[in-house]
């Protein structure tokens, strides 16, 4: 019998559909850190990000038929969408509970979350709040292409938009960020921004 660790994601999913818990464990061990990073970039909170990844994987385990291999998408590309949606839904729920305020205000009040903010340098905090202030789709496009290393095509598939629309989102995200970072003195103001 083939060791699950030597199988590709799509074959592991086929086994998960047959109820193979070892295959599920292999998939979780292989990808949980990568998807945690993705969730953290959406929520900017470690506990929230970990819970979002756990929720996403549990949804997959409880109902693996949601993954349809015949659609031809890579497992990771498809699962990015699941994680991003799960993390975004959790943020929306939190925002409903604690209306108003910025991202860090909506986080659960615990020591770990406070540490996360304290460990980040001032420059990183400025960058984080600038990214979090971007419109949601621009932020997601930037996260997927710039930080998760997805190709533009994969990111477009993940977001459910066309390639041109994705490029436009990326361009606007970068322009918006450059402007904010220049205003905060992290980079020089480009001539094109006046």
């Amino acid at each position, binding site marked *: 019998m083939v060791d699950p660790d030597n199988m590709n994601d799509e074959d592991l999913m086929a086994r998960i559909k*047959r*109820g193979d*818990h070892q295959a*599920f*464990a292999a998939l*979780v*061990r292989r990808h*949980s*850190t990568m998807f*945690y*990073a993705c969730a*953290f*970039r959406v929520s900017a909170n*470690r506990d929230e*990000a*970990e819970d979002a*990844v*756990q929720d996403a*994987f*549990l949804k997959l*385990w*409880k*109902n*693996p*038929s949601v993954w349809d291999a015949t659609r031809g998408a890579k497992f990771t590309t498809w699962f990015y969408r699941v994680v991003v949606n799960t993390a975004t839904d959790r943020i929306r729920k939190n925002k409903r509970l604690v209306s108003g305020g910025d991202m860090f205000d909506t986080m659960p009040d615990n020591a770990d979350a406070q540490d*996360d903010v304290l*460990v*980040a*340098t001032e*420059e*990183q*905090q400025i*960058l*984080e709040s600038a*990214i979090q202030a971007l419109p949601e789709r621009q932020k997601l496009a930037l996260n997927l292409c*710039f*930080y998760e290393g997805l190709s533009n095509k994969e990111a477009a598939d993940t977001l459910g938009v066309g390639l041109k629309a994705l490029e436009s989102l990326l361009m606007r995200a*970068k322009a918006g*960020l*450059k402007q904010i*970072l220049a205003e905060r003195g*992290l*980079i*020089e103001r*480009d*001539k094109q921004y006046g």
Partner: protein
Amino acid sequence: MDDSHSKNTHLFEEVMHDRFLPEPSSNLSERIIEASKLHKAQGRSGIDLWMRAFWDAFLLPHPAYVMAAIFAVGLFLGLYSEIAGSLDAGSSLSSLIYTAEDVSEGDWL
């Protein structure tokens, strides 16, 4: 200007790459795996999988259900008005038809 622009772009890339990302808890994977053991996965047995696949074969996209519902309502209304019409027509027709019971013997004689 080109030089300062490319320098600025480089600086921007550097700032972007320096984005803060704390390590996840060391036991994140194990936590997820343990949590999954508490949840029973759906549709694992052979028969269950077969039944699900069989049922899925009959699944239609939502617009198809709506069209089918509209068609069914239209068909029902059409049939209903046709039946009601034929009943009315039947009763009015019967008033025009004379049968043996309608005619008394005296009239023949």
